[in-house]
């Protein structure tokens, strides 16, 4: 009986509130449509290097049996999806290579770190102690890379990270570490240029999360933004309610908000921004560029732009269709980087570099096009000419809008 009472009164209360909102709604129905005034068209193709090295090679490679590539990184845990994107890319490269080269069958071993620096030493040590592993794709995250880079260094095992972007990683003096994409120090200025240039924002508000990645990227971005930066704020990993930050932003009336962090917080943040009446653009880096962002933020995501040192693998038709056939999925963020990294290692094996030392030397002097970009590293392991792409949300999908830096 009481329950009935509760429900009735609740219904009344809800009705009252909705009526109020309903009345107000009459006046302002067209809030969500005109999110951005600037329209940068999406690109539908990217230029794939004509002579890009592919895993299949010439099909005549021979190599001793038992050679193995490793993937070390998250397979389970909260960061599993990113790991799956990467090792599926690696797997695809290996499958193509082994199918085309009957004389050279390379194995594949995966080691799960859960993306956790404190757990990573066990799997990494195991990997370096397995003598058949000559090259590694990984580790995906900066923290775990920091914690274990010296182990790979000690054993001279070459590893190409497809996604760890912390600039500090190449300052450790490691000779076995190579980064298969641009770091945050490249992305930050590119993002700043994109926001103030193409997006024509005069006033930018920067919000960072508390991650290594978010802080580092925010530092380089804010430096490059200069006087356009009108305010900064911080949010926390796992935060769900951003009303306090949002009220500050609404008061500051920026043209663009740059969010330096991951999609788990970025999506609800953008969603709440728009719900609370923010009409500017929302710009975020690769950590937010994920289909989950759109799923989580819904129509609010229409105001979002992304910057990413990653290459839109889905626009490379050969890669996209092969990936889809193999895994029944669209390639994810960093799938192409994983694929390219594996390709570089495989081409080395095909060229007869079958020891760790030889393969390391091979990568060090590598200077060829990959499917996504040109690969040539400097002495510290940074790419010499990294590219940063811009993306936007269009009709509920993330689409590339071309290079921005």
């Amino acid at each position, binding site marked *: 009986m009481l329950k009935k009472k509760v429900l009735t009164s609740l219904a009344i209360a809800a009705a009252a509130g*909705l009526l109020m909102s309903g009345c107000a*709604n009459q006046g302002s129905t067209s809030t969500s449509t005109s999110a951005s005034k600037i329209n940068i068209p999406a690109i539908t193709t990217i230029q794939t290097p004509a002579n890009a090295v592919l895993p299949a090679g010439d099909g005549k490679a021979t190599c001793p049996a038992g050679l193995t590539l490793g993937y070390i990184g998250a397979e389970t845990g909260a960061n599993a999806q990113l790991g799956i994107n990467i090792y599926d890319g690696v797997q695809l490269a290996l499958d193509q290579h082994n199918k085309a080269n009957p004389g050279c069958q390379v194995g594949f071993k995966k080691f799960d770190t859960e993306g956790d620096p404190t757990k990573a030493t066990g799997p990494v040590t195991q990997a370096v102690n397995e003598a058949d592993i000559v090259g590694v794709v990984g580790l995906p995250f900066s923290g775990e890379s920091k914690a274990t880079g010296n182990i790979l260094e000690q054993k001279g095992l070459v590893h190409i990270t497809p996604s760890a972007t912390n600039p500090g990683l190449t300052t450790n003096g490691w000779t076995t570490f190579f980064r298969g994409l641009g770091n945050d120090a490249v992305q930050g200025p590119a993002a700043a240029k994109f926001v103030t240039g193409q997006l024509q924002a005069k006033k930018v508000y920067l919000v960072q999360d508390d991650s290594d990645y978010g802080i580092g990227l925010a530092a380089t971005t804010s430096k490059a933004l200069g006087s356009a930066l009108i305010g900064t704020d911080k949010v926390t990993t796992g935060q769900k309610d951003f009303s306090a930050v949002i009220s500050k932003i609404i008061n500051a009336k920026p043209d663009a908000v740059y969010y330096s962090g991951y999609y788990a917080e970025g999506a609800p943040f953008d969603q709440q921004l728009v719900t609370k009446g923010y009409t500017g653009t929302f710009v975020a880096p690769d950590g937010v560029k994920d289909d989950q962002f759109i799923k989580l*933020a819904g129509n609010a995501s229409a105001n979002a732009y992304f910057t990413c040192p990653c290459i839109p693998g889905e626009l490379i038709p050969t890669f996209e269709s092969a990936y889809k056939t193999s895994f029944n999925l669209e390639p994810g963020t960093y799938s192409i980087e994983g694929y390219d990294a594996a390709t570089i290692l495989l081409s080395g094996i095909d060229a007869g570099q079958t020891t760790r030392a030889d393969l390391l030397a091979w990568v060090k002097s590598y200077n060829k096009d990959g499917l996504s970009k040109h690969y040539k590293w400097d002495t510290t392991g940074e790419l010499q000419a990294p590219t940063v792409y811009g993306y936007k949300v269009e009709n509920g999908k993330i689409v590339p809008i071309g290079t921005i830096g």
Partner: protein
Amino acid sequence: MLDLLLVHPVSANDWISFDIPSLIQNFWSATFDGLTFGAIYGLIAVGYTLVYGVLNLINFAHSEVFIVGAYAVVLVLSALGFGPSVPTLPLSSIILDLVLALIIAMLASAATAFVLERVAYRPLRKRNAPRLVFLITAIGASFAIQYTIFLVRGANAEPAVTMFQAQPVFDVFGTIINSQQIIIVIAAVILMILTDQFIRRTRVGRGIRAVAQDPDTATLMGVNKERIIIITFIVGGILAGAAALFYVMLVPSGVQYNGGFVLGVKAFAAAVLGGIGNVRGALLGGLLLGIIGNYGQILLGDSQWTDVVAFVILVLVLLVKPTGILGTSLGRSRA
């Protein structure tokens, strides 16, 4: 070596800095936002307060009772066609759908609370287990539910479910109060009044108070203690279900497997702040905690401080006035 990263954009080395102008500027919006969130804390806090009253147990798993309700809201509404976008349904059907979601969330939360009580706590009561055993069980149950959800629904938050576009209703001191805030606060207050009256006026409510004061005497006086305990859990669950609806209304994309934990700890802090065992205290504590947490966050310039402020308040209250602001009215006075 990492000097690039040391260029901290917000504050270089002064890790505590008081941003008073910002607090003044955002004072009213922080207050209204805090009240709205505080109302939700209050609804959850009732569950802690009631269970603590009758069992002297911090029901750590109550946060999971809440989050199950939140999942119910999200799943029901998505099935009804709600999504991240503002729904285009006619108003009447939105109201109907929300009421339906509310009922199902209440049922889901109440059912979780019921199962929890029967499966985890009741066997312990029968054995007359020490209090530590109850607490550890509560924590274990909380974990088990959290990670069951994790396995079923994954690590990511559920997609946003927007119920309706919050509309500005009126203006207070230059800060707009929107329809969501009004609905949540009013509905929470109504629910709290109903619960309070339920405890004070009905036969079952008297039973709850009797058990809270003295379980043995209550049993002797013909109160069915087991039934009262179950009802207490269910009432707490129903309110948690309601809180779940309002939470999703406020934070449409905030439903995640571990999302209840911190919220639960804060709600417990609210219960203690208001005076554990006291339904009115739960609401008061919730509102206060919501406001103070928001002030702290704006004053100190980092959302992380919300939690720190909440915990520090909890400790201070426990040390200075362990009975909370409104003292105990449901539980016995403890010597």
